[in-house]
């Protein structure tokens, strides 16, 4: 292996003009930065594109208002066509609808702790999280365990006796 003493190495010329040497060094640095920027700017922009997507309302007719007695909670499953990356798929969702005398509330089934799927126990009027033991009452308020806040609510509209739920949440699921 050449240790710097081969004929090519011995005979090589060295740039001695300091100004020219400095100019060449800076030029190489600037070109490298431009090349790296040219590669990484679009790539990072592409990878980060999900951050720029703005959520849109997606109102879905899920049930007739009269199908839920006042005071009752119902687990309602509904299907919605959603854009999932490169595909549009029909995906199933769940909300828990609680009917109060004056309104209907739709609770998201994701525990507010870390997003596990909660279960509703009708006999106890409680929501239970199987992951870390979070417990919510039938109004979605935290009873015990680590959840930091009450269950997240979906927006609800009632029109012509039908209950419409906004599939999207302002908070992340």
């Amino acid at each position, binding site marked *: 292996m050449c240790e710097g003493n081969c004929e090519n190495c011995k005979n090589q010329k060295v740039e001695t003009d300091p100004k020219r040497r400095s100019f060449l060094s800076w030029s190489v640095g600037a070109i490298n930065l431009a090349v790296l920027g040219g590669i990484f700017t679009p790539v990072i922009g592409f*990878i980060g594109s999900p951050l720029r997507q703005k959520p849109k309302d997606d109102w879905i007719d899920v049930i007739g208002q009269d199908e839920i007695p006042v005071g009752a909670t119902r687990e309602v499953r509904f299907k919605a066509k959603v854009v999932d990356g490169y595909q549009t798929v029909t995906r199933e969702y769940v909300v*828990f609808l609680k009917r109060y005398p004056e309104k209907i509330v739709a609770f998201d089934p994701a525990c507010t702790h*870390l997003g*596990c799927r909660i279960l509703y126990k009708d006999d106890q009027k*409680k929501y239970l999280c*199987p992951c870390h033991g979070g417990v919510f009452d039938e109004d979605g308020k935290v009873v015990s365990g680590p959840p930091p806040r009450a269950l997240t609510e979906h927006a609800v509209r009632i029109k012509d006796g039908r209950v419409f739920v906004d599939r999207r949440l302002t908070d992340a699921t």
Partner: protein
Amino acid sequence: MPHDVLSPEEPVVGKHVKSEQEQLVADRPSIKDWTDLRLGWWGFVRKNLDEPMPPGVGWWQTLGNLLMTLLAFQFVTGLALAMFYSPGTESAYLSVKHINEGHPVGLFVRGLHVWGSTLIVCVTVAHVLRVFFWGSYKKPRELTWVVGVMIFNVILGFSFTGYLLPWDQKAFWATTVGTRIAGTLPVVGQGLMTLIRGGEEVGALTLTRFYAIHIMVLPAALMGFTALHLYLVRRHHIAGPVVPQKGEPVKFYPNQLFKDAIVVLLGVGILAYMSLSMPPSLEAIADPTGADFAPRPEWYFLGMYELLKIMPAGWEVLATAVIPGFVTVGMLLVPWIDRAKSRHPAYRHWTIVAGTAVILMIGIMTLKGILETPPEHKAAHAAEKVSVGTPEVTPVPRLESGR
């Protein structure tokens, strides 16, 4: 000396004397010599085989080699699996099911990959503990340790991203919770979670992102860090026992290499046995609405899982970011935190006490998670504690709607 080789007929000019390399060519060298002239390969191999081992080095120093072998196994089995795997929400589950059931060897290869990841975590932990208690990270090997900690984190990254790929219930829910952990970080949490998921929900882009990270980003990082780690190990040599032993250093080959080979054989044997006797499972396909599945992470994340349970409401960031971050940064800084001159554990009181406390905490929490009541009984158990009526569970009426 020029690399171009003189032909035998070419006259030797002046005082120039033919080098050994030139003679090799002139005398019709063997293939070994011919390639060595061009690649320098055997010199490289020789140098590594002649690596001096301090006296007292033995079985404990075989873990690094075992780890390298297991990582190579992961690379090879991962390559095979990637040829059958399809990272789409419609196809991922089916392709893994095909790997499991479509070919007799498929299940075994997947078993090697799945159990290999568990074994790698075990061996890495043992390797890290050995280096920690032996104080092998001390000057001038601080960066060897730092790069080792980076490799450990890359290995955990492999586990986290690989877990989602089968797209079954376990995969989906562990990732839903795992990515949500990023969402607990203050200020940047929600954005980070969206970035990791590739959208608001765990879906098609989460799968492709995790797949790309699993097969491209992490392997590149692992190869880079491992090359640097090995370079540093060779540059500074192995630290040897905490109390220097009498005697001369011994060459790596053949004594230490033989021990390495025995341990590698044992490790690979255990891996093969586990893969054959406990084939990797595949749960039901991922169902975001399914209520009959309680997410649980892989066993080595159970410590964090248990920690999350005991955190009071609103303090989960302690368990998701602060404590793990503190442990990771603490690990990276160990060579500078430990100011003791000696490598002997008896002279490194605080470091050993703090390290043991952290190890015990992680160990106890992990054990608690492993021994915990099965998750399907857990919900019922939790229900009894808050029960205000009959313990009988009545399913809530379920209604379905479509549009």
